[in-house]
């Protein structure tokens, strides 16, 4: 076996063992499984959040965008920073509410705040529909990374099945604790890989970052300012997109739910303060994409820019290391996505609709069974129908972002009404769907999801005000 294969298989195997071991000495009830018993300190929370944030999109997509689209890729640096700033003000209160009422998931929050079970079910269904394509994207990315990094020795489909079945195993046994601990391996490898490559390739091919930019500016002066090589993504698009995705970030059910696993409000605040620093490694990823554009122009698939440049520049064992890092980078977010999709399905759909009297043990057993169901579904989709969910993926971020008014108004505004939030949410999702599927994204230069969020907010606030006035 070549060193590259050894590193890839070794990393996937070791990660799964760490994940399985992480939950070994815990009695697994729903509280421990989904929110880690609300006992995560600053390090575990950081690992968990960082683990969720750096997905295969960050790895392949950010460099691919830098390569193919240019400046619009900067939005990835910005939106996370906005999201952490918002989280500094929003999450502590959310955490307090979660602690007081024993909330596990995002639909739990909606049910508690608005006293409406249908609203909870609706939020859960939108959440699951948004998670599925995102999960499939992680699997597809994983397959591509391992196939390229092993120089074809491990076919994509084999990599997907192997890594994902192991991921499913540690989610099943350890729940969120497993994800947090596997993040240790992932973060160390990932940061090492992007730092070495990001600082290395501009130096090796051009003698330094400044010289690389100089060459790029000379050859393609417009690539590095908005809209780069993507005319519809001009500065207005970037502004509306970072606002939308910054607000939508913590509205992903899995990221929202992870906040509950913190030990205290303080931990959440401290995490919000340090997280923007974790955006900076993305800069390295962008540097790789820009360098690749100069060194390897004309790649058919821009998303392969990162790995193609590593392959050209470094020995094959290092390519294997990058591939292994990429594989765990898919496994950790995938594990958290599976975990929360399963809990939403068992607790917020099945229990809420069909079996309100189900005991917590039963919901827990069912959640675990759902891990297997969701894993199987995602595998079938990724292997046999890779394009089935493309449309859902287009609208995933737009969809979950529509929860933002309901969450923020619910936490901070006494006059908010259930009808207002429900109507706003339904309108927001409809507007997003009509615009995106009708081919009107961007709409008047703005991100369509942002337009939908604006409609949603106006309706939620307007209707709530109207109702509160009538009541008086």
């Amino acid at each position, binding site marked *: 076996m070549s060193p590259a294969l050894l590193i890839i298989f070794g990393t996937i195997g070791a990660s799964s063992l760490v994940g399985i071991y992480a939950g070994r000495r815990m009695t697994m009830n729903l509280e421990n499984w989904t929110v880690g018993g609300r006992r995560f300190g600053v390090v575990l929370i950081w690992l968990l959040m960082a683990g969720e944030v750096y997905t295969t999109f960050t790895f392949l997509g950010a460099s691919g965008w830098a390569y193919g689209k240019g400046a619009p890729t900067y939005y990835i640096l910005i939106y996370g920073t906005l999201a952490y700033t*918002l989280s500094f003000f929003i999450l502590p209160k959310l955490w307090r509410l979660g602690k007081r009422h024993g909330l596990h998931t995002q639909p739990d929050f909606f049910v508690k705040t608005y006293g409406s079970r249908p609203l909870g079910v609706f939020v859960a269904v939108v959440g699951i529909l948004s998670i599925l394509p995102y999960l499939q994207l992680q699997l597809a990315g994983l397959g591509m990374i391992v196939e390229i990094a092993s120089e074809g020795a491990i076919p994509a489909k084999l990599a997907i099945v192997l890594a994902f079945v192991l991921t499913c195993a540690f989610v099943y046994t350890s729940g969120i604790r497993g994800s947090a601990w596997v993040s240790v391996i992932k973060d160390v490898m990932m940061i090492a890989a992007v730092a070495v490559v990001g600082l290395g390739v501009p130096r090796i091919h051009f003698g330094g970052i400044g010289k690389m930019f100089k060459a790029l500016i000379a050859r393609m002066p417009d690539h590095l300012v908005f809209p780069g090589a993507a005319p519809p993504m001009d*500065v207005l698009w970037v502004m509306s997109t970072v606002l939308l995705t910054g607000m939508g970030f913590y509205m992903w059910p899995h990221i929202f739910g992870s906040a509950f696993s913190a030990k205290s409000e303080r931990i959440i605040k401290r995490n919000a303060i340090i997280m923007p620093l974790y955006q900076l490694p993305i800069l390295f990823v962008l540097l790789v994409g820009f360098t690749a554009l100069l060194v390897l122009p004309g790649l058919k698939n821009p998303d392969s820019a990162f790995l193609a440049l590593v392959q050209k520049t470094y020995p094959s064992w290092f390519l294997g290391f990058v591939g292994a890092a990429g594989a765990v980078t898919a496994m950790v977010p995938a594990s958290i996505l599976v975990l929360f999709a399963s809990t939403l399905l068992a607790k917020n759909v099945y229990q809420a609709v069909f079996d309100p009297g189900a005991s917590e043990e039963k919901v827990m057993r069912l959640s675990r069974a759902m891990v297997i169901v969701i894993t199987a579904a995602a595998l079938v989709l990724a292997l046999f129908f890779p394009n089935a969910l493309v449309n859902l993926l287009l609208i995933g971020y737009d969809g979950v972002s529509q929860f933002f008014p309901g969450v923020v108004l619910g936490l901070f505004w006494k006059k908010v009404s259930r009808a207002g939030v429900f109507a706003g949410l339904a309108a927001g999702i409809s507007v997003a769907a009509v615009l995106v599927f009708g081919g009107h994204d961007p709409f008047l230069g703005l991100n369509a999801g942002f337009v939908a969020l604006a409609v949603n907010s106006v309706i939620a606030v307007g209707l709530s005000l109207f109702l509160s006035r009538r009541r008086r």
Partner: protein
Amino acid sequence: MRKRSRLALLLGAVPFLTLVFALPFVNRVEPVILGFPFILFWIVGWVALTPVLLFLADRIERRDRPPDDSEEQ
């Protein structure tokens, strides 16, 4: 709203001003700073400064409360 938490919110608004609303005015390559095109330098700089802003916001907020509820509550 207490004066201090308003100040904290103001600090939290800074990344939105610099990283969203200022973008049309900084969307250029020149001047190149430390080898980076100006727009990218601007963005990276404000991303790196955000933890400082939030740290200060946290200090300001916490001065409002008695110190003993800082760890748990």
